[in-house]
């Protein structure tokens, strides 16, 4: 059977730390990232937003050949700076999505939530604290491309909910998380926490 969660399983050299704060004996089981459709959408937007001056220049030059003057050259230098900053803008936009991660190790889950370049939230919970995992796929493209929303509810005084959108195969991920929690609680002889009351 095809392992649909293969993209989530990192291939790491022994002793390599996948994220800051990982213990030496802690094994990363899988890392949940957003679906490739998010990368595709951002990369397509980036291409047109960043390179439109270049595309426009070529089209205009084909129709009305642009004379080579010092003003055009100065404009091109300014365009270089525009492209540099536009590239940076979209790179950061892409990072905001790409660095939204939920990392599952053999003992805990770490949720890294990147909102902006200088705004990042990291939360973690022990695997035994996981109480409920929900998944949902809504809409035409999510159904066709198998992505959706994942909610992980944990026990504790605050009753944290870890949420992620654009997760590939969300129902499969949800059942794997439950399996991971059950294996962990069995291994560590931890009694299962009761499910949350609706």
């Amino acid at each position, binding site marked *: 059977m095809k392992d649909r969660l293969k993209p989530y399983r990192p291939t790491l050299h022994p002793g390599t730390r996948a994220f800051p704060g990982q213990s030496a004996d802690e094994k990363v089981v899988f890392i949940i990232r957003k679906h490739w459709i998010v990368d595709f959408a951002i990369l397509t937007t980036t291409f047109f937003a960043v390179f439109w001056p270049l595309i426009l220049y070529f089209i205009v030059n084909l129709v009305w050949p642009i004379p080579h003057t010092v003003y055009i050259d100065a404009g091109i230098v300014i365009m270089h700076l525009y492209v*540099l900053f536009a590239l940076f803008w979209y790179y950061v936009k892409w990072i905001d999505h790409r660095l939204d991660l939920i990392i599952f190790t053999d003992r805990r889950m770490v949720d890294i939530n990147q909102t902006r370049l200088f705004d990042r939230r990291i939360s973690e919970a022990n695997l035994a604290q996981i109480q409920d995992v929900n998944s949902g796929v809504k809409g035409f493209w999510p159904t066709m491309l198998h992505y959706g929303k994942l909610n992980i509810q944990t026990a504790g005084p605050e009753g944290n909910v870890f949420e992620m959108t654009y997760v590939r195969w969300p129902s499969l991920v949800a059942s794997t998380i439950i399996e991971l929690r059950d294996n962990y609680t069995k291994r560590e002889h931890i009694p299962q926490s009761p499910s949350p009351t609706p």
Partner: protein
Amino acid sequence: MLTLILIYSGIVLIWAILSVIAIQQVYTYAYKTDTLSRSLTYIYIVVGILLVINGFRMLLGLNIDQLMQ
């Protein structure tokens, strides 16, 4: 001419500092586990450096006297 070079270098320096901060985050959270992040970051660095060099080359080739007329 020197003023223009200084302005250009200053803007490029701001871009470089912001880029280093962004790349540092990719390096910390995704470098070892995500090939796509690594590849796109390399492309970003290479394209960025090429743009800076080409922009600088064009700036040095500008005829300032003609521009100021």
